[in-house]
């Protein structure tokens, strides 16, 4: 009996991971082109961008806020890479400036939320449109800025380790962006569990008044969360710039919704204070896999289904989550 409870506990605690594994197994059985090294490494490569942004968004959402500007910041980082590339084609400098710019926007978000006391939804909504507008102005209406810096594309296309596939060609196994994402999540898990900042995020999101009375600096915690979200968008933006070899602002259109959806799929509550950062990674993987499966089998499923399937899956998970919540409350 004891064991059955703990097994149930493990499943409910890691529902997103279970769902991700279930999708992998089901897709692997149903579609023979899914379970290949190239495809799996592609999924990780694609998921890494949403995943990295989801790290920052998880912290923001844990504090009870929301970041709608992620997609625009992501695109703007790519544009910054393109701008810097024009006069200083050095991958390190390009990356640094892109990250610093996004950190600046993140700080501006944090400033408006904490000091000006404007609701986060409105601040980041305005930032989404403002930053996109700026990007369009800089690129003169959404042109792609070419990137020629040597070695820059390795950030996105590089791999570690290789296998020989059935055609006798050597293919890479672990893509660099996936490593960046996993390292990011390891750091994020440590930060959320073992640092004052991480614990403060839960406290602020759980009950802001109680957090103030405990002497937690609510403003500082929120500010840092938005700053972090900006930095994460910067990193993800560098990857997309390296992947597409160009800086384009519109590349991030609609990404903020994918990011929020991955965090929500990961079981983090939008009211703040509850959730696990690591689960956002499984959420990002699920979202990417749905798109990937549909792309691979476009002769069977029309690409038009992608949104429907993602949306309905989200709905089902939300209803299940609310059921679990009410069961928990009922048990008490």
């Amino acid at each position, binding site marked *: 009996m004891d064991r059955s409870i703990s097994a149930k506990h493990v499943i409910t605690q890691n529902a997103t991971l279970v769902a991700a594994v279930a999708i992998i197994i089901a897709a692997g059985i149903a579609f023979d082109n899914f379970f290949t090294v190239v495809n799996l490494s592609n999924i990780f490569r694609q998921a890494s961008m949403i995943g990295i942004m989801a790290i920052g968004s998880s912290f923001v959402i844990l504090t009870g806020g929301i970041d709608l500007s992620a997609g625009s910041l992501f695109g703007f980082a790519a544009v910054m890479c393109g701008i810097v590339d024009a006069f200083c084609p050095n991958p390190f400098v390009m990356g640094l400036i892109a990250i610093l710019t996004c950190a600046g926007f993140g700080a501006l978000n944090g400033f408006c939320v904490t000091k000006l006391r404007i*609701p986060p939804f*409105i601040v980041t909504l305005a930032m989404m449109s*403002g930053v*996109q507008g700026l990007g369009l*102005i800089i690129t003169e209406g959404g042109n792609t800025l070419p990137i020629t810096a040597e070695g820059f594309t390795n950030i996105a296309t590089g791999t570690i380790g290789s296998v020989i596939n059935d055609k006798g060609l050597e293919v890479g196994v672990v893509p660099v962006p996936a490593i960046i994402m996993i390292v990011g999540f390891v750091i994020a898990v440590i930060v959320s569990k073992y640092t004052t900042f991480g614990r403060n995020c839960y406290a602020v999101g759980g009950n802001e008044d109680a957090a103030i009375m405990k002497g937690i600096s609510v403003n500082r915690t929120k500010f840092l969360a938005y700053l972090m979200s900006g930095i994460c968008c910067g990193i993800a933006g560098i990857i997309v710039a390296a992947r597409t070899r160009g800086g384009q602002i519109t590349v991030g259109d609609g990404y903020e919704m994918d990011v929020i959806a991955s965090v929500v799929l990961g079981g983090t509550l939008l009211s703040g204070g509850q959730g696990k950062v690591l689960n956002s990674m499984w959420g990002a993987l699920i979202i990417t896999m749905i798109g990937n499966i549909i792309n691979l089998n476009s002769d069977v499923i029309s690409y*038009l289904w992608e949104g*429907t399937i993602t*949306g309905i899956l989200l709905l089902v998970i939300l209803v299940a989550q609310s059921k679990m919540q*009410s069961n928990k409350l009922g048990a008490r």
Partner: protein
Amino acid sequence: MENDVNASLLQIQELSNKALKRSEFAKKYGALIVFAILIIFNLIVTPGFVDSSTVWNLIIHTTTTLVVAMGMTFVIATAGIDISVGSTMALTAVVTATLLPMLGMAVSIMIGLALGAGIGLLIGTLTVKFKIQPMVLTLALMIALRSIARMVSNAKTVNIADEGFIGLSVNYIGGTVPVQLIYVVVIAIVFYIIATRTVFGKSVEAIGNNPSAARLSGIKADKNTIMVYVLLGILSALAGCLAIARTMNCNPSSVGSGMEMDAIAAVVIGGTSMMGGKPRILGTVIGCFIITLITTTVNMNGIPSEWSMVFKAAIIILAVYIQSEKKIKVRQSKIKPIASKEV
């Protein structure tokens, strides 16, 4: 001794009353002030701004946002939110446009409105019965409904040939005054009356202020919350019809895209709090006009249209900042400390 304490308490009360009045004033007139500044700016700077066609254009471009924002005001007043309105518009519009040649204007519009009401009913029921946060719920629907809308027409643009239907949005009264003027005036008056003079409007305000208190005082909170979403669903469908009647075709990928953001921004600029509370209909009307006016200003001055996005961002932040709850500044010198005397 006691008198002293009472006197200082009275002073504090007076100060906080003043602060309350100030914040009420800012909420009521903040949007109006920003709108006035924009108008004055335009009168001075923009060439050819003083012209009846400017006003008519402003009204034509505001109508769809206004229709959605009216419903959004009530939703936000109950402390909810709906970011699926753009996708609801797309789905109902594409269904209406597809049925139009077969069933005629009246029936297909009715089906569109009923579909919108159904979507609202779904959102309301799931929010109330399953306690799912409206933000994530409507996020899921935003993704799903847009995709379904594109499936309905196989991602193709549906052309509209029905003269009567197009007349909904491109008729002119007496040759110059757009028919939208009537919509804007009627809708603003009707919803102002609903918000201020009906039990429903007052219930919405009570639910937004304190849902449990509202429930305890006998207000059917669940029913009213569902009603609010149904109302928004119907209005979104109506906005969808007006939008496609104006463009004379229906592209399910672009109808209503970004509408959720414009509508929410208009409501918040208008002074309705995102934490729930009083639905400020007139504020929302002005908020809608502010958003359109920014675009108009940028276009009429020949500035690249991308700048309007940046200005929009700055003005939204400014307008909401004017209304945000400031901390009550109690000057120490004005009030004698009470704590030391209480002992």
